[in-house]
């Protein structure tokens, strides 16, 4: 079993590396993979690689990984296979925060550079996501116990409230700013105005989150079955639930503040991985992370390459939902035919 996990992870990591190379090489101007690896590039080409394609590819990997990992974590915490990273209200908070900052900058400080406003949007979204997550967490506590059902319900209701707020804020914006916010909400991996530090932060937090969650994997298994069952086996569920919520929320907060609502990755990838490697979270977490990163990287490559043909750049969030939805339904139907529980 351990060998199998190592093999799967190594294979996925190799696939990620290959896909990243393809991601860097392909595009409006095609580069040779050997030239890229050996650094035999002209100045414009190397600027294209380091300043745009590599940056965006790494962002896709970290966002996809973070969404898939947090999706798996929320599914375990809420004991609900339909949960996804955006269900507990962290994302609604990020949307309110990001949109507020965007409106503020667009209407009051339009003279600032897009670089500054981009960082401000990131920071605003992150802070609001953390605040609202903490609020919902606090409100779902009863007698010192996190009631996951009310966390789920409050999250869903809060997301409706958040989208109403965002809808109202959108009426204030016009023109390019409106399009910018639409793209962010749909989920996009635009990196032009994003500093390298943010991408580094996303990658490091993903690595940290993966380490923490895999370390408590055995406890997560127990909690994902039932809290009473977990307690009766000698594992207090509350601490594990807190670790799950905090880690997954932090990952979602970062992913959403950077790239908006990239849908479906956090729902489908854990499901597909569960079909392949089983429900043991010590395997599900690392494999989901790698698979999620790979999935979003390939989806973004497809969205970039299809741009010239469509005459517009398709937001990757729309593409993941467009491609992922049918794949997911086909997967479910196949599992149902074979009598498997999904």
């Amino acid at each position, binding site marked *: 079993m351990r060998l199998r996990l190592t093999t799967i992870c190594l294979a996925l990591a190799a696939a990620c590396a290959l896909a990243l190379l393809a991601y860097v090489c392909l595009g409006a101007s095609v580069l040779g993979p050997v030239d890229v690896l050996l650094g035999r590039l002209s100045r414009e080409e190397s600027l294209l690689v380091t300043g745009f394609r590599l940056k965006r590819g790494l962002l896709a990997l970290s966002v996809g990984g973070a969404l898939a990992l947090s999706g798996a974590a929320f599914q375990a915490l809420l004991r609900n296979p339909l949960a996804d990273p955006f269900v507990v209200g962290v994302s609604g908070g990020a949307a309110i925060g990001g949109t507020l900052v965007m409106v503020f900058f667009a209407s009051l400080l339009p003279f600032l550079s897009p670089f500054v406003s981009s960082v401000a949007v990131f920071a605003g979204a992150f802070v609001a996501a953390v605040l609202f997550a903490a609020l919902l967490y606090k409100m779902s506590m009863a007698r010192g116990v996190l009631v996951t059902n009310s966390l789920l319900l409050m999250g869903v209701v809060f997301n409706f409230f958040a989208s109403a707020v965002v809808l109202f804020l959108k009426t204030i914006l016009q023109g390019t700013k409106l399009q910018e916010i639409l793209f962010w909400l749909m989920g996009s991996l635009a990196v032009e105005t994003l500093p390298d530090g943010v991408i580094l932060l996303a990658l490091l937090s993903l690595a940290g989150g993966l380490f923490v969650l895999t370390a408590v994997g055995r406890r997560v298994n127990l909690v994902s079955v039932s809290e009473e069952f977990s307690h*009766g086996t*000698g594992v*207090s569920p509350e601490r594990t639930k807190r670790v799950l919520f905090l880690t997954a929320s932090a990952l979602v907060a970062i992913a959403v503040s950077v790239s908006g609502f990239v849908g479906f990755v956090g729902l489908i990838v854990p499901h597909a991985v569960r079909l392949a490697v089983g429900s043991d979270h010590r395997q599900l977490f690392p494999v989901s992370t790698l698979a999620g990163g790979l999935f979003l990287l390939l989806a973004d490559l497809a969205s970039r390459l299809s741009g010239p043909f469509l005459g517009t750049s398709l937001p990757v969030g729309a593409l993941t939902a467009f491609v992922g939805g049918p794949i997911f339904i086909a997967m479910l139907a196949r599992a149902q035919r074979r009598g498997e529980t999904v």
Partner: protein
Amino acid sequence: MISRPRFSASSTSSPPVGGPLSASSASSPPPGSSVTAPAVLCAGLGYSFPGHRAIVEVSLEIPAGAFVAVVGPNGAGKSTLMKLCCGFLAPEAGVVEVHGAPPARIPDSERGSVLGYLPQSVVSHFPFTCREIVEMGRPARRAAPGGYEMSTDQSVQGSVAGAAWRGAGATGALAAAPPTAPEAKRLLPRRGTYPTDQLSALGVAHLASRPFPQVSLGEQRLVLIAKMLAQDPDVLLLDEPNGALDLAHSLAVMSLLSQRARSGRTVVAVLHDLNLALAHCSHVALMQCGSIKYFGPPSGLPDSRLLEQVYCVDFATVSHPRTGSPVLIPSLKPPE
């Protein structure tokens, strides 16, 4: 093998102590006197749900090595009492102690080996295999290299234990013939043997690679009991272990549980079958409306009028043709 300095249980099984509701002080015993310390102690226990008092002034003292049946009508508070005893619920009044420590205070690293709790229903939404469920019972620290016996005679041990439960089922008697002491030792799965052993001890080794949510309710029960046997805690708290089980499996579970009790573990099980309780258990706790109406050896129950009062059912008591032990035959009271 595994040292348990703080919560060690006595391995000598104390004889069943009779007497209803023996009062005792809730003070924890001095170190070294664990032989006399009760395995489970409840004193003045109370718990209520909004608008409903589930547990009222329950005091119990369960000695180590006892096999206690908790019986009573639906809604009497049996499950709530179990959740309080394992520390999943915090008492509103009174105290619970398991081997001298409140269960909620026992650190996670030790609680799994001090007490195990089988909930009344476990619904998994994720397709863990039955083997994975059983493996969950094994605390991580026991999985350390060398600390975990991978038995080479798996099939032998499995078949012996399997024969034991088949034998219990085949006789059809309510009381399976108790195995002799060395036999019991041999039948008992070794502490921390491979999960498949626990499954085959219950005759369900063929379920090992099937997804837990897909097997039948009775089979799920057996898998969960196998997980409890793999965990092998000092105190086993089981909420309806033989709910949804067929006769043979139900008897096999009872005989496995009494083996555990004979080897010094303490077993507390919520049961609905009074005859199983009479035949297998050393103590019966009869509950009604959140309080204990009787606690003592099962022999004291059939003759008293308590059962009829608590269950509102007529009982005829006959003696078993082979064992001579009392068997209860319930019938609805005629309408007045």
